[in-house]
Every structure is written in structure tokens, then in C-alpha cells.
């Protein structure tokens, strides 16, 4: 009896501790960041190396970088996941090779992706420091997590679906589009959110690819500073930039919540429209 009570007390304590750390972090950012947060902070350009002014161009650049990353990573990720789960045997050589390389890729530190992106996209492909380079580098970075979650989602759909639709004479592509992908949507969205979460917090991969320029970008070929790079620069490189760094961190958290809620509502929307409800 006492043992039981002790065990549950311990579990509660650990859970509270973890929640407490998160709450502390959030409270710290809100307390320091909220006083400077205003509409003008969100739309104005940074001034005096970021100490004054706002983060308007930085938010736009961040959004564009994420957009490039998602638009590139989702088709490739989805296609690879479909290949792995629907068109190869679990233990085939190709499947093992692709899965193995994805596992290695997902463990690669982001600075390595940054240096790769700099060498390949910026210099070799001649894209220079640009939002495109940054977005493509992030796409490479989030692909492994995207593919693995999408693959798990597809494999989790009951095999009865495949058998039943084959019995009805549906083609494999029709089965995929009308049954399997809708059924796997929650997993796909979860993977996308995990990937986006990693991407939006990325500094090391972006400072050498999308760069440091805090001007409003005219095109995807312009260098654009991401929010995380801006926060890093303000807190680590600019004396007196702490206040705006806190506010920018708050905006980053709000942006992440916003992206997550959009993704969730999209997932719900698609689920209601699909043939299969899980």
C-alpha cells in the first residue's frame, strides 16, 4: 500500500517537475517579452542592429523559408513513404537501405546540414545566401522525420482496406488516394508538425544558408534572416539586444502554436471529407 502510494507520488512529482520546467521557461519569455510586443514590433524593420524597431522582415523571411521547406519536403517525403510502405517488402534490400540512410540522416547535427547547404545550394548550385537555399536545406533536414512518421501512419492502416479495395477491383493508386492516405492523414500531419517544429527552431542550418540580412526580401533569391537567427544574434552578439530577443522568442512560440493549430484544423477538415473515418 505504502509502496503504491510512494510510486504514484514519485510519478506525479516527476510529471510536475517536467511541466514546471516548461512553465518556468514560458513564464520567463512571456514576462520579459510581452512588454515590448506590439503591432509596430511585428511589422517594422529592425533598427540599430535589432536593438530598436521590430521584426517585420524577419517574420516574412521565416515564413518564406518554412514554405519552401514544406513545399519541397512534403511531396518527396510522401512519395518515399508510399514507396517504403506500399511498394517494397518490409525486408527488401532497397527498403533497408533507404530506412538505414534515413536513420543516419535524422541523427546528423544541424550544423552539418548548414555546412552541406552552404556548400551545395549556395556555392555549387549558385543560389547564394538566399531564402531558397535555407528552405531547401531545412527540407533535407526534416525529410527523415517526415518520411518515418508518414510510413508508420501508412503501415498502421488495416490491411483489410487494401484487400477489400482489391476485391472491389480498385486500382492500387485509387486505393492509395481514396483510402490509405486519408486514413494516414493524422500521422502525416503529426510528422509535418514535428518537422516544422524542428525547422522553425533551427539556427545553425540557416545562418550559413539563408543568411543574416534583415531587409524585407523581394524574392526567394534574397538572403533573409530567420527568427531563430535573429534571436541568436540579439542575445549572443549584440550588446543590449536582450529585450527584443525575448519578444522575438515569444513571437516564435506564438508562430509555432499558430502553425500547429492550422495543421490540426486542416487535418480535421480532410478527415471529415474523406471516405474513411478512423
Amino acid at each position, binding site marked *: 500500500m505504502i509502496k503504491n502510494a510512494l510510486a504514484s507520488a514519485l510519478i506525479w512529482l516527476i510529471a510536475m517537475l517536467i511541466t514546471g520546467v516548461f512553465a518556468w521557461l514560458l513564464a520567463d519569455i512571456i514576462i520579459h517579452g510581452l512588454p515590448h510586443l506590439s503591432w509596430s514590433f511585428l511589422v517594422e524593420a529592425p533598427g*540599430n*542592429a*535589432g536593438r530598436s524597431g521590430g521584426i517585420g522582415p524577419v517574420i516574412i523571411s521565416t515564413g518564406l523559408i518554412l514554405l519552401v521547406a514544406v513545399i*519541397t519536403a512534403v*511531396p518527396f517525403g510522401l*512519395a518515399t513513404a*508510399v514507396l517504403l510502405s506500399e*511498394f517494397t517488402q518490409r525486408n527488401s534490400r532497397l527498403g533497408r537501405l533507404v530506412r538505414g540512410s534515413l536513420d543516419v540522416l535524422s541523427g546528423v547535427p544541424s550544423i552539418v546540414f548548414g555546412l552541406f547547404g552552404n556548400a551545395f545550394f549556395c*556555392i555549387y548550385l549558385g543560389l*547564394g*545566401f538566399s531564402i*531558397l537555399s535555407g528552405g531547401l536545406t531545412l527540407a533535407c533536414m526534416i525529410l527523415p522525420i517526415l518520411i518515418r512518421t508518414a510510413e508508420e501512419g501508412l503501415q498502421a492502416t488495416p490491411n483489410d482496406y487494401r484487400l477489400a479495395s482489391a476485391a472491389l477491383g480498385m*486500382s*492500387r*493508386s485509387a486505393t*492509395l488516394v481514396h483510402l490509405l492516405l486519408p486514413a494516414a492523414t493524422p500521422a502525416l500531419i503529426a510528422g509535418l508538425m514535428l518537422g516544422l517544429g524542428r525547422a522553425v527552431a533551427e539556427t545553425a542550418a540557416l*545562418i*550559413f544558408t539563408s*543568411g*543574416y*540580412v*534583415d*531587409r524585407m526580401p523581394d*524574392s*526567394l*533569391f*534574397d*538572403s533573409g534572416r530567420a527568427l531563430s537567427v535573429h534571436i541568436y*544574434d540579439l*542575445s*549572443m*552578439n*549584440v*550588446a*543590449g*539586444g536582450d529585450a527584443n530577443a525575448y519578444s522575438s522568442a515569444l513571437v516564435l512560440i506564438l508562430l509555432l502554436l499558430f502553425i500547429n493549430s492550422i495543421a490540426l484544423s486542416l487535418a480535421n477538415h480532410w478527415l471529415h471529407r474523406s471516405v474513411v473515418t478512423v
Partner: protein
Amino acid sequence: MKKLGIVVTLIVLTGAVWGLLRIQSNETKIEKLVLTGSSTIAPLAAEIGKRFESFHSNVRVDVQTGGSSRGISDARAGLANIGMASRGLKEDEKDLLNFTIALDGVSIILNKSNPVNALDKQQIIDIYTGKIANWKEVGGNDAAITVVSKAEGRSTLELFLHYFSLKNTDIKPQVIIGDNQQGIKTVAGNPDAIGYVSVGAAEYEAGQGAVIKLLPLAGIAASVENVRNRSFPLSRPLNLVTRGEPGGVARQFIDFASSPQVNDLIEAQFFVPVAH
């Protein structure tokens, strides 16, 4: 069928990228000036760039960071029009030209609660080489010294090593940091730490209530004033470097950055202007 779909997607994506590239190459009327290098100079260069753009509407100044060594190698390789280096050029870098736009001093900093108020040159060398490991040996508390040093490639490190005639392998640091702000935060958060950072940044942060103090060097107080009158011994130039004589926009930018028109920007970044 599906393979065909994937192939089509690939072709469309490649086409889209190429299309975007073509559009870009057709509208390059705007002249781009790329600066890379020292993270110390980068915020200043970005501000000078903004003011320069306001006078030259057809020019865009893109500033990227990565450290002085990167600035020098990018300028040499032609990846950047102008490199930024917060140190003088070394012997094997004399193939490049350098233009000093401002000065910065490097100061030894301690936590404010540390009773030690001055260290002589030999004591600092002994602390950084690990011969002195406890503050009581230099008249402080009985506490182990936390030696904070900078990462390889940082010009502050090179300047520090040069002044104290040390090699990086001689230094026995407990903490290795990158930027000035990181150094100030590390020392402010550890009462037994010793570090070295930019005088301008340290003076500003100390004035803003950071729990650090700047140690005098060879009897001369570490202050922006003493860097300006060049009496402070541990100071460094902030340089723009180019491969060969700069022409066109690069020339204009360097002239602009060396003129008194940007003195207020230099002072706003806690550096010391050289132009009068």
C-alpha cells in the same frame, strides 16, 4: 502508373526551380554587394549598409557572418566582395588589402563579486595556462578559477594570444565561448570565472547592471575612452578587406564606411571611430 507520377512530379519541380532561376537572371539590374566575416563587425556593417542603400537606391548590401577567418577566405576566393576581419592581416594574408573603419579594445573581465581588482600580465598568463588554478594565489577567495576562452577562429582570441605571447594550445580553458555576449553572460553567471571580451560591449553591459567588472591592463583602465586615445594596449582594428584594389560600388562602400558620416553608427555599436 505511380512511377510515372513520381517522375512527372520531379520534372515539374526541376522545371519550376529552373524557371525561377531564369527569371532571377533576367532582372539583375540591382547591384549586390556581399560582405562576409567577423560577427563583431556584422551588426555594424549591416547598419552602414542600410544607410549606404538609402543614398544608392540601385545597390543592395548583404551582410553575412561566420568569423574573421571566413571573411578573409571568402574575400580571397571571391565569394564575397568585401570581407570583414576584426583583426589586422597576418603575414600570409598580405595579398589582401585592408581598410580600418573602427577600433575595438579587448578587456579582461571578472565577476563583480570577485575581490580581485587587478592582475598583472604574468598572472593572467599563469591563469590561462593553468599554472594558477585558485583565486587565493592572486589574493582572492579560496575558489577554483573558471577559465573562459574563445573558440578557434575568433579574432578576440587571436588578439589575446598575440598580446600575451601565447599559443592556443597553451590555454587550458574550462569554458569555450563564441561571441562577446556569451562571454559576458558566462562570467556574470559564475563568480569565479575570468574571461576576455570587447571593451565596448563589456562597458555597456556593466553600465546596464551586468555583474561584471573590467580589469585594467598594465595600469590603464579598460574603457572606450582609452581605446580611442590608443593608450589601452589590448586593442584591435575592425577591417574591411578586399582582394585587389576595390572598384565601383565596393570602393564607394569602403569610402563611405571610413567617412565621418557613419561615426554615430560606429558609436551606437560601442566601437571607436577612426575617421574625423
